[in-house]
């Protein structure tokens, strides 16, 4: 665990206590089993917002606390432990970051206070295909007299069913594959011509597919600079990615601890199975990977807080390390639990499903490894 200041310690402890009392895995399971329409529990998110967690990266001037990314990462890690579903990553981290970094004063004033209070949910609408690839943005934004007309489709939009605001990556010029020509637009969910449909994924969250059919927007809907939105998008995505990595770290820690408890209590052949050396060494391996991953995640969060030049590398490392570790631990969680881990009544499957969904979001482990290699110049 990184060395924390007093604010951060308090924040982490309050998140930890809240999760323990209000949001154990059972809460997520109930949400899933009742097929909650948004893919999370709005009352729980309201509580989070009340505790200030929705405004951690938002400046005080716009109703946030501006505690920074490491601070929000600590909260996300605690949420990850028990699979808490909420718009913290999509809205309070990703969309908020995009607005803070790229928004006009008007845009910030309109949206950030509502996001910080949890009164509005915002999210990125980036991907158009099965795999993350922001440069392949094809959704068309044509210039009109008054502004732009957007036509196209987006998919796998996080918290897309709950969102009040979409930050849509569109193409104002250039070809799919090119950075130049990508523009970000603020599109309210009630815009004429916009429709959404839920996508049911294995992790039971609120994904949506969007369809934009000649959605008319004013010029003031552009976030940042027209045609030059790729940089802002990439910086925003990196903030979202490190949030995903923090959630994955929390999940890994809890999946490991749950498994460790089982190793200490399950008896076979007259012995606790944790006394079998082959399992001991596999547990040691997991512990080792967890410690290494924690370093990567905390370093990436800190890099963002410090606006470090190597932030993209640090983020790629964090997302890849967290992806590998979570797969390892969630697979071992099922295997070491044996038959009981295969049942829907046990938590192991929930971790495994969420693990894959997080991996696929905003760049897989392989994608980030390749990205890291390209950035390192080989």
């Amino acid at each position: 665990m990184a060395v924390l200041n007093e604010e951060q310690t308090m924040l982490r402890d309050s998140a930890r206590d809240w999760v323990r009392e209000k949001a154990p895995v059972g809460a997520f399971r109930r949400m899933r089993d009742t097929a909650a329409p948004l893919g999370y529990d709005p009352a729980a998110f309201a509580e989070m917002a009340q505790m200030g967690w929705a405004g951690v990266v938002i400046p005080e001037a716009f109703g946030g606390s501006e505690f920074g990314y490491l601070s929000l990462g600590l909260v996300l890690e605690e949420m990850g432990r028990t699979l808490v579903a909420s718009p913290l990553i999509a809205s309070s981290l990703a969309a908020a970051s995009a607005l803070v970094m790229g928004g006009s004063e008007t845009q910030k004033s309109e949206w950030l206070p509502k996001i910080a209070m949890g009164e509005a949910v915002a999210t990125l609408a980036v991907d158009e295909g099965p795999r993350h690839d922001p440069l392949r943005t094809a959704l068309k934004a044509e210039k009109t007299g008054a502004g732009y007309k957007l036509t196209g489709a987006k998919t796998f939009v996080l918290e897309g069913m709950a969102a009040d605001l979409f930050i849509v990556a569109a193409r104002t010029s250039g070809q799919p594959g090119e950075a130049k020509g990508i523009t970000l637009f603020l599109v309210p969910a009630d815009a004429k011509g916009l429709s959404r449909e839920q996508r049911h994924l294995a992790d039971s969250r609120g994904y949506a597919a969007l369809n934009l059919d000649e959605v008319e927007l004013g010029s003031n809907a552009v976030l940042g600079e027209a045609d030059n939105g790729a940089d802002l998008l990439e910086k925003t995505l990196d903030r979202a990615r490190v949030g995903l990595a923090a959630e994955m770290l929390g999940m890994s820690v809890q999946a490991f601890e749950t498994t460790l408890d089982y190793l200490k209590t399950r008896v076979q052949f007259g012995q606790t199975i944790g006394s079998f050396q082959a399992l001991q060494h596999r547990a040691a391996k997991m512990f080792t990977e967890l410690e290494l991953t924690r370093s990567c995640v905390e370093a990436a969060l800190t890099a963002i807080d410090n606006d470090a030049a190597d932030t993209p590398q640090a983020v790629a490392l964090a997302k890849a390390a967290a992806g590998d570790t979570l797969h390892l631990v969630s697979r071992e969680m099922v295997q070491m639990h044996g038959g009981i881990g295969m049942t829907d009544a046990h938590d192991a499957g929930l971790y495994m499903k969420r693990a894959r969904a997080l991996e696929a979001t905003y760049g897989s482990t392989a994608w980030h490894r390749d990205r890291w290699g390209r950035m390192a110049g080989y």
Partner: protein
Amino acid sequence: MPDFGGEPEAFRVEAREWLAENFPPSMKNVDLAMTVDAPTGDAKLWKERMGAKGWGTPTWPKVYGGGGLTPAEARMLQQEMARIGARNPIGGMGVMMFGPTLLEYGSEEQKQRHIPPIVRGEIRWCQGYSEPGAGSDLAALQTKAEDKGDHFLVNGQKVWTSGAQYADWCFCLVRTDPNHKHEGISFVLFDMKTPGIEVRPIKLINGYSPFCETFLTDVKVPKENLVGPLNGGWTIGKRLLQHERNSLSGGGGSAGRFAAGKPLDQLAKEYVGVDEEGRVADPDLRTRIIRHQMETKAFMLTLMRAAAESKGNQGPSNATSIMKNAGSKVGQDRAELAVEIMGSQGLGWEGPGFEAAELEQVRNWLGGKATTIYGGSAEIQNNIIAKRILGLLDHQ
């Protein structure tokens, strides 16, 4: 028609002619062995004909209705069936596991009573082995069978009873002596309609319920349903597990079952795309697909080698001991890669936006995690290799 020459090939002609007459062409490539509902029409016809001929259990003795074929003849039959896309309609645990065991250890009366219905595919069997406290350590089972004169009174709980909700009969390990671990176990059979049996399906992480919990409360099992000697059930039960392992590790087992669908390289070209040289565009993913496909090939070659060796005169191949782990690894790796290749699209659970093949993939991926747990976990397989094949000892 080619001249097959030699005596044994005469059977091939017989098989081919019988199949030409009796195999309904509508059944081409249709797999009935795993279906739950009673077949109708051509399916019913095909099953009845094969059952009556005994060729669904080709090497079982004729006296109990089996095919009575030699292994060489059975292979010819298999080849002839494969040639025309005819699948064996007789299957399930009775054929794969219980039948061979009963033929070896059952009394004459037991064989006469239980084997013919298996041969005809009329009776479905389920396996009462695992218990909540006895997983990998199967011999720790506690389900109690008390001697009540003409019957045993059985009380306890079984788990992972596969297909118990559809089964007619159960072969079951019970404890008849609480003072000995392995030597206190007996092998009994009972009708699933016996009073006191309650079956509850278990929902798995992939949403399916192929297994059940089975609660046994004062279930009366007639003494005639004891197979082998009292307290001698462990040997029989273990022998049956060997049949299970063989059926799990073969081409039709884990590797085959979970390696369904398009080849990974084709999947990758569709979902990931290719670079200028036609290579899968994600180089990290590509190298892992190649590695996996090569491992799969190595596994398939090992299956073939083991089969050739067992046909040859070298006795059973060492290679068989690695099959279950190697096969399940190949199957699980494949499923992981497929899900990874398809990205978010490979994680659909239900509803619109996903093709059937995509939805199936995620269920296969999750369901396949069981292949390193059931039928002797990967850890148990490694223990077996280390101790039985390599001769390493336990702590002394």
